[in-house]
């Protein structure tokens, strides 16, 4: 497992990491809150039947400091589109989680030809005053793992510094991932994506961890109702906000089945 290729492309002048593994039809994946500081089992699952391509987003691990020049939501969407283009993902299937899922949905709305089928895991982008998302940026440090994953140890293991990593730069990179998410979504997470959902024509799978403590589960209904293309909603048992890390085989299985 886990033999993957690492490529680097230039996005807005910043070196951007692209991971690639597997064979078969192309599938892109955009990571959720915290990004992908290391390769994760969920990616192996997707790569079993697909050519999996995982580009990093600006500011997230592998995305350098690309977030620092993105000031508006349009700046972000153009950067994501550019990243997908350079990763060779134009017109391919696209799966995405959490903060990445919100951006993937926006790309599918604005540039319909960029995405064939869309799989979204608990996307950011909405804010309902009566049922608000949890504020991920106003948390005591020890609370974060349990908010992101149903099993906090999975988050901790993903974020733990690997042997041989730079002990100063590694923690800074993890803070940067949180900053990049904040740069897009601060303070409420509301990008007013609700207004753009009708532009999404791609068939869309909505996945939500049953124990998601960040994004209220009934937001799935707002996405499903707003998206013009056909939608399917699945709740993943035993999973938290980053359902793909809590239940890699189940989440990958749902995505692959939906795309086939």
């Amino acid at each position: 497992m886990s033999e993957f290729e690492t490529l680097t492309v230039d996005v807005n002048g910043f070196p951007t990491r692209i991971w690639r593994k597997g064979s078969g039809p192309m599938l892109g994946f955009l990571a959720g809150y915290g990004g992908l500081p290391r390769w994760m089992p969920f990616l192996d699952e997707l790569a079993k039947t697909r050519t999996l391509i995982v580009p990093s987003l600006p500011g997230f691990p592998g995305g350098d400091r690309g977030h620092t020049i993105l000031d508006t939501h349009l700046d972000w969407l153009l950067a994501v589109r550019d990243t997908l283009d350079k990763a060779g993902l134009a017109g391919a299937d696209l799966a995405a989680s959490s903060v990445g899922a919100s951006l993937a949905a926006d790309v599918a709305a604005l540039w319909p030809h960029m995405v064939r089928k869309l799989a979204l895991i608990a996307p950011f982008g909405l804010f309902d005053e009566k049922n608000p998302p949890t504020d991920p940026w106003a948390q005591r440090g020890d609370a974060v793992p349990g908010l992101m994953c149903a099993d906090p140890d999975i988050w901790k293991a993903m974020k733990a510094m690997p042997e041989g990593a730079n002990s100063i730069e590694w923690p800074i990179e993890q803070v940067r991932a949180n900053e990049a998410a904040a740069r897009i979504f601060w303070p409420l997470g509301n990008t007013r994506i609700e207004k753009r959902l009708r532009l999404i024509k791609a068939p869309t799978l909505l996945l939500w961890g049953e124990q998601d403590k960040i994004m209220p589960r009934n937001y799935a209904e707002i996405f499903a109702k707003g998206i013009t293309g056909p939608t399917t909603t699945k709740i993943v048992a035993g999973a938290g906000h980053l359902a793909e890390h809590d239940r890699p085989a189940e989440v990958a299985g749902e995505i692959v089945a939906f795309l086939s």
Partner: protein
Amino acid sequence: MKLMWFHLMPYTELPEDFREANPSVWVDIHSSLFDPKRAHLMYNDFMDELEYAAEVGFDAVCVNEHHSNGYGLMPSPNLIASSLARRTRDTAICVMGNSLALYNPPTRVAEEFAMIDCISGGRLIAGFPVGTPMDTCYAYGTNPSQLRQRYMEAHDLVIRAWTEKETFAFNGRFNQQRYVNIWPRPVQNPHPPIWVPGGGSVETWHWCAEMNYVYCYLSYYGYKAGRATMDGFWAEMDRLGKDRNPYQAGFLQFIGVAESRQQAFDLYGEAAEYFYGRCLHVDPKWATPPGYTSEGSQRAGIESQVKQAADSAVRGKSTGERFAAVARDMDAIVDNGYVIIGSPDEVAEQLREVATQLNVGHLMLLLQFGNMSKELTRYNTKLFAEQVMPKLKDVHASWTDHWWPKPMDVSQRAEIPAYMPKLAAE
């Protein structure tokens, strides 16, 4: 040297069990703890205290900006400063300051500071803080990832608004204004002196040194903890080949003067413990909005911890993180140097050491803190003015303060009628 009287305007009636019963003094402090009728009395006491400090001869009176904060009741320090401009005559008015990124458009700061400078006849010191995470990112919702970029841009806009003679268009990343042309313009030419309060980041030292601004370390942890930060600033000044003029630095210090050290300990203990216990009780969840601390400062912080350097408790730490580690009983408060206490001679001696060792020409003194009463504040202020101040006037006398306001000549200034309350019989 300059001795400046600083007020934070703390709410003085937080309940005794505040720490235990409430998550935070800042951001989500509960509104039920705020009694506006009591605050009426507090504000008026505080303004009396500032006016009294001016009357007894402090070089400046200082106010600052906080939001949703139980120890800082000045969301708008400019309101207090404008009143002080009328009720003081020769004292400098230090607004420490306006958090530039929070003003939309930032030309509001240029305008209001120009107003205060005009009303006061050129006595304003213009403070430009970035602002704490609690004030900026949480209470005001500013994006932590953009805060510093917005701050720098707002700074450039304010300076241009003060100095350019013609109406101009400002085409910034975050601010676009087609017609910038502020009225009024500041009395001081080209503009009031600019002071920057910083928390010890390398970037701020460098920026103050390059821009020729006063660097101020407004810490609540006294001179012992402040030493490493001020040393860092002077090291940066040395590196850039700049003068070690102590007037390019400011430092905040809590003070309690009495007849003797023991009397000071007894008199000020309650107020100090109120401040360090209740006022600095901030929920750690407000400590570190990602992006607030620059990567350079994070790096310096991690390196400092690895080396267990003297400043590892503060370097790269946010305001909230520093608060969490604070000492709260009077013995430790005094031992750590948070509050300097003693007889006038003892306080003068310690302050001389602080001013010399930290190489600071502007001492911003908190002689009211916590729930200190008006009476005790007056006593502390008077004793300091009469018996400590004269002993310190010679410190740094060989240097020139290039960063002090240059007011209009007294002969040109308005006659301000003395405040005369109507007699009840009239």
